[in-house]
């Protein structure tokens, strides 16, 4: 156990050489490959982070697009709801107008129907009244009433319009002209003579007269000269009364 300087120096040199050799063949290549691996790992991590960032950006973009789509959808829905509301208001307005028109039409129809019913009722009342008056006059009719009606006819003949008088005279001027007198009851001779005189005076000539009876006249008489007809009977006067009453009502 003693210090050998030759060995000492050689071992110093040996160790320094070993340091160089290990640095050359061990540390440097191993550290280099570790550094390359670390760089690759760092690159992978950087790529992963970049991918994560891109994914985040894509996600943000997607969310933004989704939000925009939702907003557009909501706006479209709001617009659609507004359109529906407007359409509903329009349809309700049209329906209300139609209902109002229908109501007015129904009211008009009801009023017309009511008027028609009233008119029918009035007509029926007139007919019943005419029938009642006709039955009443038929029961009240007698020779005296016939005489009064004849007197009224004789009184009214001169008051006929000139055109009618001309027409009667023209009808009486025909060669085969005859006068047909219908009465509810047979006329006595005096009334016949009075009628014949009045007619001859009106027509300017005396014509042959044919007398007959017609119970449907109820009372009074009807004189026919050619196409002309002079009525002084209850059956002929009642419709005039009825029309006058209906027009008055």
């Amino acid at each position, binding site marked *: 156990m003693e210090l050998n300087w030759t060995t000492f120096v050689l071992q110093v040199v040996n*160790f320094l050489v070993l340091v160089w050799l290990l640095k050359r063949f061990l540390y440097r290549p*191993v*550290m280099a490959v570790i550094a390359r691996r670390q760089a690759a790992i760092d690159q992978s991590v950087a790529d992963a982070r970049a991918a994560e960032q891109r994914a985040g950006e894509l996600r943000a973009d997607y969310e933004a697009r989704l939000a925009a789509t939702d907003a557009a959808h909501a706006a479209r829905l709001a617009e659609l709801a507004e359109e529906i509301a407007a359409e509903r208001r329009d349809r309700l307005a049209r329906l209300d107008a139609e209902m109002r028109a229908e109501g007015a039409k129904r009211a008009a129809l009801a009023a017309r129907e009511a008027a028609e019913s009233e008119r029918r009722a009035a007509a029926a009342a007139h007919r019943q009244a005419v029938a009642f008056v006709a039955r009443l006059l038929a029961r009240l009719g007698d020779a005296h009433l016939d005489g009064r009606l004849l007197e009224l006819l004789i009184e009214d003949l001169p008051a006929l319009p000139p055109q009618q008088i001309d027409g009667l005279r023209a009808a009486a001027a025909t060669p085969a002209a005859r006068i047909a007198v219908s009465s509810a009851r047979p006329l006595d001779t005096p009334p016949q003579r009075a009628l014949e005189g009045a007619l001859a005076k009106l027509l300017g000539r005396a014509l042959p007269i044919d007398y007959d009876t017609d119970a449907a006249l109820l009372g009074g008489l009807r004189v026919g000269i050619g196409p002309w007809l002079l009525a002084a009977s209850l059956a002929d006067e009642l419709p005039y009364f009825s029309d006058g009453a209906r027009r008055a009502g």
Partner: protein
Amino acid sequence: MNAEAVVFSIGPLAVSRAVATTWAVMLALTAACALVTRHLRLEPGRWQTVLEGVVSAIHGTIEQTLPGHGDRLMPFIGSLWIFLVMANLVGILPAMASPTGDLSTTTALAALVFVSVHWYGLTSEGPRPYLRHYLQPSPVMLPFHVISEISRTVALAVRLFGNVMSLETAAVLVLLVAGFLVPVPVLALHVVEALVQAYIFGMLALVYISGGIQSQQRLGRQLESTDGATS
């Protein structure tokens, strides 16, 4: 085996067994490293994984002790660990002697550690800040610092030499006295002791170097704080 025995001579240079064994260890290490590191890949194989594990462990240990100096100190400290492990274990092989069983080898390594402490300390911040720490906290401490430097270097050399030499001697004695298989536990103890002594030597070297680097850094911080306080 006597590590001090001269194996052959190259002219006036007497090559001892320790030197020859060291050359063999160097050749084996270099060949193995060159072989394994020839085709390094990013997807490591079995041997590449082992090699990267060893290098990463050395680098990590240095970084834990002296952060930021792993790349700079790894060749020296790593070579110490690797060489000492191989040199200590090679004595187990038949007809081989550990180079570290030679006081000249351990002294050479300790001397290299001694020099490297000052080398790294001087090259870190410059000679003046480094040498000034020998005067801290008082110039009176300079002799004690010098004695400390020498004594710890001597202790470094003698500790390794004594442990390895004693283990080999004990193994030889047990082998001579007892039977063939009886020294096996002693050899197992040799393995453990070889690893422990290599770790202790390299760790102490690392601590000494980091102490040299950090002492001037502490001194620099103290000076900065002193300047800041006075200004």
